[in-house]
């Protein structure tokens, strides 16, 4: 991989990072919103570095051609008076380019050429511009169906942030699915009994059955660490997979120990399609 290719790769990679953050919100499909400014900074840095590398390479070419124009002079100088040639500023810079930029190191390891593996840096570029991967959805929920269990934030009672305790009698509490399943699994006081809640997520029809799940992925950092939170709904017909819905309903209180429950269920009172889904993760 020569220096022009390295520079262009960096520019493209930086452009991919900038494209997915500034004109579009694509990056929200992959990483937390908090990464936005860092991605912009990294994108700017890569474009800048790439442009500088390309510029230095082209400047090197220009100098070489100018030298060629005065080729005879240069050769005379080089042959006749190497010392003074080396002392002149341009020659020093050229030496630098040869020794470091394009020359060979002491181990025969060429510093100007990057290893072939660096071409792979174009894969994220391809991914952004051609595939533009969507947020994880029903496929991931189905693929991880076995891992349904208590929610990741194993907080002790008293640390809930869902507003159920503050709710006035009869008030509908709007909360994340994460907050709902955490409350359902951990709250031994079972405050959710009879409490109307409003949850928003995407639909995942049950594979063999009439019910469906209202699901949302919880992300700590990026999609690779996404964790599935879902609520089972059986008293409404299953909508199409990956459509977004807001469901108002009440918790179906399970029998027996809360920690033994394999999944939580919601009795839906009202379902409403969400036309403009929010940040896909919560």
């Amino acid at each position, binding site marked *: *991989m020569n220096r*022009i290719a390295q520079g262009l790769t960096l520019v493209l990679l930086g452009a991919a990072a900038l494209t997915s953050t500034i004109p579009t919100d694509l990056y929200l499909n992959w990483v937390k919103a908090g990464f936005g400014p860092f991605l912009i*900074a990294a994108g700017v840095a890569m474009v800048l570095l790439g442009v500088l590398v390309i510029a230095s390479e082209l400047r090197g070419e220009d100098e*070489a051609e100018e030298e*060629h124009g005065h080729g005879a002079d240069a050769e005379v100088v080089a042959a006749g008076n190497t010392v003074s040639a080396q002392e002149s500023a341009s020659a020093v810079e050229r*030496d630098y380019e040869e020794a470091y930029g394009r020359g060979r190191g002491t181990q025969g390891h060429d510093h100007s050429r990057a290893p072939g593996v660096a071409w792979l840096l174009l894969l994220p570029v391809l991914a952004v*511009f051609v595939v533009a991967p969507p947020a*994880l959805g029903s496929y991931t929920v189905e693929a*991880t169906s076995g891992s349904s269990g208590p929610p990741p*934030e194993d907080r002790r009672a008293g640390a809930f942030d869902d507003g159920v305790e503050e709710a006035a009698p009869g008030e509908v509490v709007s909360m994340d699915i994460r907050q709902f399943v955490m409350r359902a699994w951990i709250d031994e006081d079972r405050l959710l009994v009879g409490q109307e809640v409003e949850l928003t997520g995407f639909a995942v029809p049950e594979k063999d059955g009439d019910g469906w799940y209202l699901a949302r992925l919880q992300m700590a950092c990026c999609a690779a660490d996404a964790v599935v939170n879902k609520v089972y709904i059986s008293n409404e017909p299953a909508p199409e997979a990956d459509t977004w819905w807001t469901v108002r309903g009440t918790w179906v209180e399970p029998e027996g120990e809360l920690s033994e429950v394999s999944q939580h269920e919601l009795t839906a009172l009202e379902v409403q399609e969400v036309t403009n889904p929010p940040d896909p993760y919560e």
Partner: protein
Amino acid sequence: MPDRTTPATDPGPPPSSSLGDSLAGGWADRGEELPPEDWGRARGRRRTGTVWLFALFITAMALGHAWISDELTSQAFLAWATIFTAISFQALPFLVFGVALSAALTAFVPPSAYQRFIPSKPSHAVPVAGASGALLPGCECASVPIAGSLIKGGVAPAAALTFLLAAPSINPVVMIATAVAFAGQPEMILARFVASLLAAVVIGWIWVRFGRADWLRLPTHNHAPGASRWQVFRESMLHDMMHAGGYLVVGGLAAATLNIMVPREWLLAVAGMPVVSVLVLALLAILLSICSEADAFVAVSLTDFSPTAKLAFMVIGPIVDLKLLAMQAGVFGWRFVARFAPLCLLVGLLSTFLIGGLIL
């Protein structure tokens, strides 16, 4: 001059041949290795070719965006692409930060500065390096190039390697993330800190005793005296970015594939077995290659596993994982990885069992 009217398409009879000869004279005078005679000749043409290649690539991407994007509907492929892109883009800011910091260390910090802060005796330098790992906020993508430039700056390799292991494991951001994930379980935070630091320092000491310099392949940058510091900075950043970045993508590909392919049900089947469950989560940490700042959230979600197994996930992940192995290979060479990774895994596991047994 006819050969200068179309320089971009055809440089004509190689213009740099006379320049190459004159430079060759200069090189020979200084007793340096000669550049091979033909390296400069086809360069102009090759550069033009490169530009055409990228123009073609961008055109192909535009066409692909218009025609192929809508055809890509395979759910499994899209989920894979999402996870691959997520790993790449999440690591990118850290990689750029690490590479820039490492280039700044190379260009602007004279080796004498390290000698003032880090003890010259390697066995003393190792704990100092381990403790200073607690200062650098970043994940493993940042620490690999930084460790490389520390070694180039004259820091004992064992100390730089200890820093490489400690920085992503116990830095403030990681500890805060762990505290948030394991709210109400301060013993887990303490166990993670102690086990990771212990493993990093012990590995450093083992490297002091048994490590050999020729296992590490470090490119020796011979900076010409005329190079300005900014040129050194630029070149060093480009070099690290290309090496570490390429391998980061390799690691991202592998991790995304395993993330999609390994069904979580397999994990639940072994969660109850005491020692096996620890080994399984250690293996999972290696395969998933989750950034150390996020691994606590994943660890806490593996609710069926014992605390020691979760600790193993958080201790092993930042010091051995696929993405990290590939990046270390890019910077230090496979000879190094073949020895260093098993050592890290072994010491990390021993440290996990010891600290897990004492604290958890």
